[in-house]
């Protein structure tokens, strides 16, 4: 079975014919050609596939594309501002929050979800709200510093 999926992807409305059993992560990577979202564990354990659905972080590997009918989906590709990195991306770059980089898109989208709800998060807020994301390189300290640096930059 296939049906037409209408959604807003990174601010643009679009419609695609997608199979009922297609996962959101496969839709993003294979149909929309947005390969920034990564496939890590395939089971909701690593967080590499994290995107925002209606502004809230969600695993795209456990979400059916068809379940996003009419919703707003945002991926790492939505963050750049006129070809330049957004504050969070710059934070990860400058504070060495990314090493191999595989977890980074998921980390940044989880952090984006956090900063929208809590613009000035403490260390504990960052740890608690990014606990679904695994990084095997950095040891997390640099990731926390990256999110704090972005929060400082975005502060009014």
């Amino acid at each position, binding site marked *: *079975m296939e*049906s037409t999926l209408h959604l807003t992807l990174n601010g643009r409305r679009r419609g695609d014919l997608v199979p*009922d*059993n*297609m*996962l959101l992560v496969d839709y993003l990577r294979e149909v929309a050609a947005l390969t920034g979202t990564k496939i890590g564990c*395939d*089971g*909701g*354990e690593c*967080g590499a596939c*994290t995107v925002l*659905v209606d502004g*809230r*972080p*969600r*695993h795209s590997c*456990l*979400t*059916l594309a*068809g*379940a996003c*009918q009419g919703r707003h989906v945002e991926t790492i590709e939505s963050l750049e501002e006129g070809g330049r990195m957004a504050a969070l991306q710059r934070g990860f770059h400058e504070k060495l929050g990314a090493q191999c980089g595989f977890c980074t898109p998921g980390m940044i989208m*989880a952090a984006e*979800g956090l900063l929208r709800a809590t613009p000035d998060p403490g260390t504990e807020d960052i740890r*608690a*709200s*990014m*606990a*679904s*994301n695994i990084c095997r390189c950095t040891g997390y300290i640099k990731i926390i510093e990256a999110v704090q640096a972005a929060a400082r930059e975005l502060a009014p």
Partner: protein
Amino acid sequence: MEYMPEFRLCAPASVDEAVGLAAADAGARYLSGGTDLVVNVRRGIERPAALIDLSAIGELKDIDEDDGGLRLGAGVVLRDLAENETLRRDFAAVAEAALAVAGPTHREYATLGGNLCLDTRCLFYNQSEWWRGANDYCLKKEGETCHVAPKGSFCFAAFSGDVAPALLVSGAEVELAGPEGRRRIPLAELYNDDGMDHLALKAGELVAAVHLPGAVAGVPSAYAKARVRGSIDFPLAGAAVALAMKGGGVEDLRVGLTAVGPRPFLVEDTERFADAPLDGAALDDLREMVRAQAQPMRTTTVAPWYRRRVAGNLARRLAAGLAAASP
């Protein structure tokens, strides 16, 4: 992990429509957040002909005051449950348990109903198709032997939801909707003591809501769990305790356990603590009582004796904390 099998996806707008769709197709399964079911579909454990997505049904997402208590829609996501002020004040264990489920991203879309209907888990079951095939499958799915207790014909897969024990100590009832209409039963009756068939739902029935009684509102309660990874994991053992004190003695003490057997349950015989102070000796008694009633099997990589001890100690620690905080 396997690729997705073929199935139809339906998105009903109301509970009645969802129930109608399920009645028309015996191979259909209800889908909510999908944090448990989609993983099992991808592992070839579940092969539904259709998935009925409940996430567009507004009725399931409400939290309402109900006769001094609360009516929680089954589609409320765990994050909203954990942050609900009334729940945190009046039914603290339920909010704490919701906050203890998996990781923060899961809680953004995993629901109350989904956590209550979580499939039971076992080392020999939650594996990929090729792993299970290479290991002779197991009693719960496609196999003939239970690898946990090879001589028996009983499935020991453990129920691993965090919210159920907290609801049990709060005297919760569940509202079910099915082809024969709605019915309301005590939460304990939702579960069978059988890892292969742990939900007492009739064909086509779904959990629509949870009712928390006003009489229990405000009774101090708490939840705690042991897990392998502190940031995100199923419980190795989980305990909820509700404790009402009166004049220095115990008025009502309830302990609910999860992840130590095929169903969550209330520890029996806690009435014997009534009217006496909950001192060190009583707390030790409670620990031993919980330890004796927790009967986990080797369904995780962690040894059963550890999970039994942890269950006893979690209950003791929570009860001690609640007793110390009571006026």
